[in-house]
Every structure is written in C-alpha cells, then in structure tokens.
C-alpha cells in the first residue's frame, strides 16, 4: 500500500530530517512508526500525504507516485494530523459535509457513516455547534470521522491517541482493526509503545532521520518488549 524508496528530506541549513528512508506497508497492515521527538516521523508522514514537497527519493501509494499522481494518491488516502486545526467558523456537520463533497461521497453513504462514527465517538449532538466551541479531543474525533467518510484505502495518522479519552481511544483502535480486516492499511506514528506493541502487526523505528529497525512486531521484539527494543536501538545508534 505504501512504498517509500530512498526518501530524504533536508530543511534549511542542510540538516537531513529524514535520510534515505526505505519501507513498505502491505495491504491489511497496521503499521506503527516510532521515534522520539524530532526523529523525522511527522516529516515522513507529511510527505506521504502530499503536504510536504521533497526532491530525493519517491513514495508510492497503491503503486502510484505521490510526486507524479498526487490527486490519485490523495483520493484513496485519509490523513489525521497530531493537532487538527479545522475550519473553526464551520459547524461540525458543515465540515463533514464539506469533506463529503470533496470526495463526492453519496448522500446515503455520508449520512450512514456520519451517524455510525459520530455515535461511536459520542459527538452527534455537538455536530450542529461551531468547531471553535470544541475541545481538543472533540476536534480530534471530528477529524477522525472526516477521514473515514470516503472509506480510504490508506489511513495515515500522526499521534492519533493524544488528547482522546480512553473510550474514544478504544473506539479508534477498533476502527483501525476494522479497516485492516477489509484489506486496507493504517500507518500511524506514536510515542505510546504499549499501544504500538499490542495494535500493530508491523513497526518501524526511526532515529535521527534514519530507519534503525523495521519488520513484524512479534519477530522484532521476540522475548523482550517494544520499549526495551526501542531504547536498545536508539542507544546503540548514538
């Protein structure tokens, strides 16, 4: 579903935020992307979803290059940032309808999906209120619902569990599993290693822009924990 080939990204001053990254996410994967602050996770995610331009390497979504066919890639992808800044002057339902229009989701489908996911996250009643009145968690929930409206083949999330209450976090985990059961993929970054260990069938660890570990979660951690593995590879890389 995602194939990252020799991807590098430098910012001002020439320092490489991501250095020659290669990884593959298959259909049906829940893929955890792990790294400390500033390791290059968000840079990679933003490049995957087409927010960030890059010169070195290429990224393919379902076989299409995000550089050459950005529209086709975006049509099958959904992205939820770590801190979703949404259109505060719209109501929740107006925002969802806007996203529905952009992806040309039929009326019946959008009504059914909004009802299902909004009820699941318990924000149906608040959908008529302005987004500016929402808490951080409510904005996060709204962003998740909007991302699920067009049934994406690839769901990309940046730190999705930050700000969610325990019930909403559980709901999101179930949705992620459901998406993958249908043959789609989820790629997300996280600091919560316990969640990654339990939820992801594959993980990758990035440190100072370089991939230091990648593979099946079970094979990587074997008799230890993801936390121990993470500390080990990061320390070893110093």
């Amino acid at each position, binding site marked *: 579903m995602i194939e990252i080939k020799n991807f590098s990204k430098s910012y001002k001053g020439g320092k490489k935020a991501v250095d020659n990254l290669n990884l593959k996410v298959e259909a049906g994967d829940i893929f955890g992307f792990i790294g400390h602050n500033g390791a290059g996770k968000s840079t990679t995610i933003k490049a995957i979803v*087409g927010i960030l331009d890059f010169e070195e390497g290429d990224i393919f979504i379902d076989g299409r290059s995000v550089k050459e066919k950005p529209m086709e890639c975006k049509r099958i992808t959904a*992205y939820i*940032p770590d801190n979703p800044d949404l259109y505060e002057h719209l109501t929740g*339902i107006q925002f969802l309808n806007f996203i529905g229009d*952009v992806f040309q989701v039929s009326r019946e489908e*959008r009504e059914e999906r909004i009802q299902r996911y909004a009820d699941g996250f318990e924000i149906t009643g*608040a959908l008529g*209120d302005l987004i500016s009145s929402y808490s951080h968690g409510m904005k996060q929930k709204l962003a998740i619902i909007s991302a699920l409206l067009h049934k994406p083949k690839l769901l990309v999330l940046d730190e999705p569990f930050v700000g969610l209450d325990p019930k909403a976090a559980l709901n999101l985990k179930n949705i992620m599993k459901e998406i993958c059961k249908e043959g789609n993929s989820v790629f997300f970054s996280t600091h919560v290693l316990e969640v990654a260990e339990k939820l992801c069938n594959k993980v990758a660890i990035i440190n100072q822009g370089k991939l230091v570990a990648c593979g099946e979660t079970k094979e990587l951690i074997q008799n230890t924990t993801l936390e121990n593995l993470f500390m080990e590879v990061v320390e070893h890389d110093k």
Partner: protein
Amino acid sequence: MISNSMLLLKILFLNQFKINELKEKDSKYRRNVILVGISIIIVFVMMAVYSFAIGWSLGVMGIAKVIPGYGITIVSLITLFFSIFKSNGILFGMKDYDMIVALPFRTRTIVASRFLYMYIMNTLFALVIMIPLGLVYYMFEKPTSFFFFTWFCGIFLSTLLPTALAAMIGGLIAYIASHFKYTNVVSILLSLALVIGIILSSMSLGSMDESSTDLSRFTQLGEQISKQINSVYPPSELFEKAINNQDIAALLSFIIISVAWYVLFVQVLSLKYKSIHTAIFTHSTKSNYKIQNLKTSSVLKALYRKEIKRFFSSYAYVLNVGMGAIMAFIMVIAVFVLNPEQLERIAKIPNIQNMLIKIIAFVFSAVIAMSCTTSVALSLEGKNLWILKSLPIGTKTIMNSKILVNLTITIPIAILFGILMNLKWKTDFITRIMLFIIPIIYSILSAVWGMFINIKLPNYDWESETTVIKQGMSSAIGMLGGPVFAIVPVLIILAFQTVPYQIFHIVITLIVAGIAWLLYRNIIKYQL
C-alpha cells in the same frame, strides 16, 4: 508595569514581524521583506512629497499658519479611521492571549502593550506626514527654536489621542456585541453604521460654502480653513496656538489631553478586558444536533460555501476588505441621487457632468477594486492549510472558489452601477454597454490580481488574522492594484480629450481583460 509592557511589546514585535526569520540570510521571508520594504519606502517618499507640496502651496498662498492644525488633523483623522477596525483584532484577536494572561502580568500591562503596538505603527505614518509639513512651516514662518520642541511633541502626540479613541470605539463595539448571541454579526453591523456615519459626516463637513471664498483675500481664507479644521478636530486648535503663538499653556493642554485619553483608555479597558475577551471567544452550544438529510454538492460549490462562510465570519475580513464594496455602494447611490450641481460642489470640479460620463466607470472601478478578498484568502488558510494540501482538490478549483467569493461581493454592485447610471444618463449605446462591462472587468481583474499577489506573498504563520488583513503586504498591494489599473485610464482620457472617449473605453477594457486572463493562467498553474 512599564518594563513589563515594554517586554510584551518587544515580544509582540518579534512575533508579528518575524524578526528572527529576518535575520536568516537566505530566507524567502527576508527577500520578500526587502522587496516590500523598498515598496514601502517608495510609498512613504511619495506621501512625504505630497505632504510637502500641500504645505508649500499653503505657504505660497500666505497661510502657512494653518499648517500645524492641518497636519495634526490629517494625521489624526487617518489614524482614527484606520485604527477603529484594526483595534479589535490587535486587542482581542491575538492567539497568544491564553498564554499571556496565564503569566503574572497585570491586565493593564497587557492592554498597554497591545495599545503601544498600534500607537508605534501609527506614529511611523505620522512622521512621514508631519516632518515635511514642519519643514515647510519653518521655511515660511522662520519660527524660534521653541518650534522644534513643540513640533517634535506634535509628531509623537498626534496619533496618541486618535489611537486611544479608535481603540475605545473598537472596545465599545466589542463590549456591546459580546452581549449578543451572534457577536460577530452585531460587531460588523455596528461598525458598518459607524463607517457610514463617518463618511456621511465627512461629506457634509467637506462641502465648504464656496460663495464666501474670495481667493484674493487669503488671510480670510486661512482663518476659514483654520476654523473648519478646528471644528473637525478640536485639539488641533491647541497645537496651532502652541506653534503659531509659542503658547506653552496650549502645548501643555495638548500634551495633557493626549496622554489623559491614553491613560483613560488603558484604565477603562483593563476593567472589562477579560470579560470582553471571554464573551467574544466563548460560544453558545446547543449539543442537540440530529443527523437529517444532508445536501451534496460539487467540489467547487463546497469550497465556495466554506470560503464565503469564512468571509462573513470574520469581523476584520468584512470590514477591511469589504470596505471598497461598501464605499462603492455609497458612491453609486450618491451619484444616482445627487443632481449635477450637488456633485460639482462635492467634487469641486466645474462642468462635471460632461467629464463624468467619460470617466465615472473607471472611478467607480477604482473604488470597487479595493474590495480584494483574494489578496488575503490564501494566507487566511493559515494553520488550516494542511486540509487543502492533503485533500484531492486541484489548485484551479481552490483558486476559482476564492475568486468567486470576491466576485460575489463586487459584481452585484458593479451591475447595480450599470443599471443606475443607465437610468441617470441619456447617452450613446457603446457608453451604456461599457457602464456595465468596465466595472465587471475590473472586478474580475481585482480578484485575479489579489490571488496572484497572495500566491507571491503568502503568510500562513500568523497569530492574529488582523496581521494578514490589515498589515499584510499582500493585502496592501492587492487592494491598491485594482485602483491603480483604473486610475491610469482616467488620466489618459482626461489628457486626450479630443479623441472620442468610447475608443479608450473599448481598448482599455480589452487590455484589462487580457491582463486578467494572463494572471489567471499563471494562478491556476500554482502548486499549493
């Protein structure tokens, strides 16, 4: 308190003008600032030359004594007019409010720092107007050294009172509106009423009784001008006395009145600052929504709806960028209702009717083109830009939606202009048609020009939308572009009066349409 206010002021300047980014040698921002800085210097030089020329003409007429009152009044009125709508954004619209209020600063300190920010910006403008006028006054009146001290005080005090007054009016509007459910709508309506009031009253003040002005009696004229200036802005009389008569008491009164307004403003607003802020930024929620039949639409329509809601949800956006449309509307009605004699008196141009039919469409276009929402539409995406970037929407559709919003505001008034001018004047067929086409083409040019400029000078990293709307370079250049394109043809038509003006109308319209088309082609190729 003073040192804390200065500390907050320093942070405000660092943040608003991105000073640290400016220090980076190869940053795009630095290059843009250099270009924009050069443009600002050119505009400032032009303003200074204009100011000098006006002062000089008053001096040549032998009425240099009106210069002090004239200078103070001009600076004060412009400061007042442009600060009323800015004040709310700077006082209440900054996104750092929560962080600053949580720190151990007195409310007075916060209010004072926000106020001083506005004051310093206004005073830069005052310097450009007052220094040339002071120079002319010195050349004609040869005053004593007391003049330098007094004029120096005048420069730095000229904006204090009007800035305080504007901030008070802005604060009062915010306070009244905060008591209503639809805070923003009430703020916009109150401010619109205020603007229309200011425009209408300035029109009535501007129509001097010309029958009594005998140009051979300059002294009498000077007194009359002085009296009129003082009636418009009473504190100018004190400054005039202080300069002309070396009246220390008048100077002290001028200083005390200016500073007192500032202190009064800071004290009064500090009492209600937090409650106004809370009322503005808390929203009533019903939390009883039930999913009913949702309407589907095209991508363009969805973007257009989002964009038009963005426009009308912002106080600063409607009042600043929409001002051209409001003024154009007032102009259409005024030209339609007033008879030629009244128009001649207001415009102070004899035989106006014959000239007006040739140039009115361009003059109107210059005013309507000032409503250039597109010049800030992209920048205003700000932190929401990730949404457009990550969605499968082509640049062309995004740009079209923003251009359409601009046209929604300007085209109806342009059509109204065409209808009313056709009703008012009996003229030839070509002119009748051009009364519709010229303003419509200029509306399109202005919208496309604004979009082009905003692409070249975007600013997504803002703390307050007022920074983008009122102080942004894209906003200023976008707003001035249309009027410049429209004023040039007026000068050409007036310069070549022997050539049938209809030829100019057609040729200029074709050129403008061509420029708009080229700009549009350029815009839709842009990658967000």
